[in-house]
């Protein structure tokens, strides 16, 4: 992570600019969302409009300032480098952790590339569609087997144990014991209904 302190007093490198632009993934939707809610609040009654009006205005201004900084990194506006109490806690924590954990424990982390991120997002979206199309009783199978194979884990023993334990939890505990609603998804439900199975 690049600290905003480091970026303030010097020209940003291409990599830093790229990192900053990544913020657009959520800052732009947040800006549009808050602006929309602020403008939309004018059509409601006083009681219903007050909170979205003021919260929308403040959030739109703050996200707008950040947007300016992302698009024009030379601008001081929207840099948001002040630490607040978080920075003080972080400093205390970092000082103590560095002093005490030195040479004792190194957390194993590796550089995460965009393709790693893309792969994980695809896996998550795949899981969502498995549940949407087949419901949770069948979707659980696709999620466990599918994501494991997608990430290259193909050992059948642990996978089988995982599947059995999840079915005990999902089917026996959640569905039967706790009475979770029936859900077979957009694809499976019409088929099962057509066959008079549900």
């Amino acid at each position: 992570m690049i600290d905003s302190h480091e970026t303030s007093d010097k020209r940003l490198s291409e990599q830093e600019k790229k990192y900053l632009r990544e913020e657009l993934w959520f800052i732009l939707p947040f800006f549009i969302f808050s602006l929309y809610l602020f403008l939309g609040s004018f059509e409601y009654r006083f009681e219903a409009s007050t909170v979205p009006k003021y919260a929308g205005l403040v959030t739109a201004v703050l996200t707008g300032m950040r947007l300016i900084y992302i698009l024009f990194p030379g601008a001081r506006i929207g840099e948001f480098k002040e630490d607040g109490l978080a920075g003080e806690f972080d400093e205390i924590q970092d000082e103590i952790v560095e002093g005490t954990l030195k040479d004792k424990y190194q957390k194993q982390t590796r550089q995460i590339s965009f393709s790693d991120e893309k792969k994980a997002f695809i896996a998550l979206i795949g899981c969502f569609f498995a549940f949407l199309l087949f419901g949770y009783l069948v979707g659980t199978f696709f999620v466990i087997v599918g994501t494991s194979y997608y990430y290259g884990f193909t050992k059948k023993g642990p996978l089988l144990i995982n599947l059995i334990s999840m079915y005990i939890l999902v089917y026996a505990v959640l569905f039967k014991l706790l009475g979770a609603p029936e859900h077979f998804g957009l694809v499976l439900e019409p088929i099962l209904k057509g066959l008079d199975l549900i």
Partner: protein
Amino acid sequence: MDQVAVALASIFQLDSAFLLILGTFIGVVVGVLPGLGATHAMAMIIPLTWKMDISPAFVLLISVYATSKFGGSLTAILFNIPGDNPNAVTLIDGYPMAKAGEARTAVAASATVSIIGGLFSAITLLAFLPVMYWIIMRFGPAEFFMLALFGLSAISAVSSQSIVKGLIGGGIGILLSTIGYHPLVGQARYTFGTMFLEDGIHMVSVILGALAISEVLKLWMEGSSIAGEGVPLSGSYKAGIKAVFENIPLVIRSCLIALVVGIAPGAGSMVAGFVSYASAVKTCRNPENFGKGDVRGVIAGDTALHACQGGDVLPTITLGIPGSNAMAILLGAFVLHGVTPGPQVVKLHAELVYLIIFTLFIAHCLSVLMAVSMSTFLEKLTKARSEIIAPIIIVLCLIGSYVVRECWQDMMIMAIFGILSYYMKKHGYHPIPLVLGIVLGPVAEFGLFTALSLSDNGIFIFITRIPSLIILICTLGVIFWPLLERIYKKKQSLLS
């Protein structure tokens, strides 16, 4: 006294007792899994409680919260792998002790201080509750609104890298909470004519996405980097227990440090553990032994980890201001079960507060018994790969977000917030203010309009009432702290 009796009777009912054991088991297991902690376990558990009565639901949630730390300490001592980040303090002396053939001594010391920490947490809560009750009874809607505002700004200030980034998250959370019917006038807002949005965006989907799914994504991206070489359980349990009682002043000091750090919003058990350890190094005799397998290191760090839970829970259940991520989820659980978080909990559900206190202590004791007796099984769990763990969490989260309202859109919202929160964390925006905004937004809105409808002076009610004014000053202080600090420093430098 009646409420205490009701709380105790609730815990020892068959279903609650079973859930207490189940929650303890889940807490210990999740604590052992590297990278996962109480926050993730509670996020996954919360949807499972949606059909339960409120008492058993909170027994389950609190037992998971209370016990995940000891599982993490066990793996830190035996494998040099902290189950969760705060457990890193245990391995400084715990692992060298285990390598020197004193693993049982370290485990016993950690287990004993875990029970003492749990007991201290319960006593803290019991001692402060009457004081908080006295204060809360003087609160009206104006103070409820101000408290919600203070909780949001305090968490924004302490959880994100920059206070403004925290405020952005909090603002988005509040805005999300305004979607759907207004609680007082019943007007539908921002629904685009869809039935799904009429009931608003459900906070469970946001909590699961922001806190659990974003971690799963990280788990997938970082891949498996688990399990070091284990150390066999050798040494004497008795020596560990004896060491704790020989260092009672150290235990008491660590408890007090933990209490102060625990109450501060956002500081959390990691800060408590390391501050307590650093204080032990500075004040104990023979400080050169610390880091080389000194049992006092395990005692100082682990006592604080467990004792700070009382300070963590206290502002959450009495004022609605969460001390940590896990407590933000607990606030969500209150809303899910129809209880308004904050002072109303103490006013209207005192028996629930006692239930939380007793569960906190009993779960600590149970977790020690469970973790020590299952150490061989837990050892195998530390070798679990992310490819196995991640789908389990995804399945539980997807089911959790679906079953609450039976809407597939909730699963989609969870996935969207999972990806959004991943990027937010990456860029120094912690998702906790967002979660808190969606939980406390309706509380603040309700408080605002109830206060205004009771007021003869319009918005001046917020400054003419003394408690409300004090909270307002605190809120402004938290937000403008960096500015005040800069002015003070400038003045100091001019003077010097």
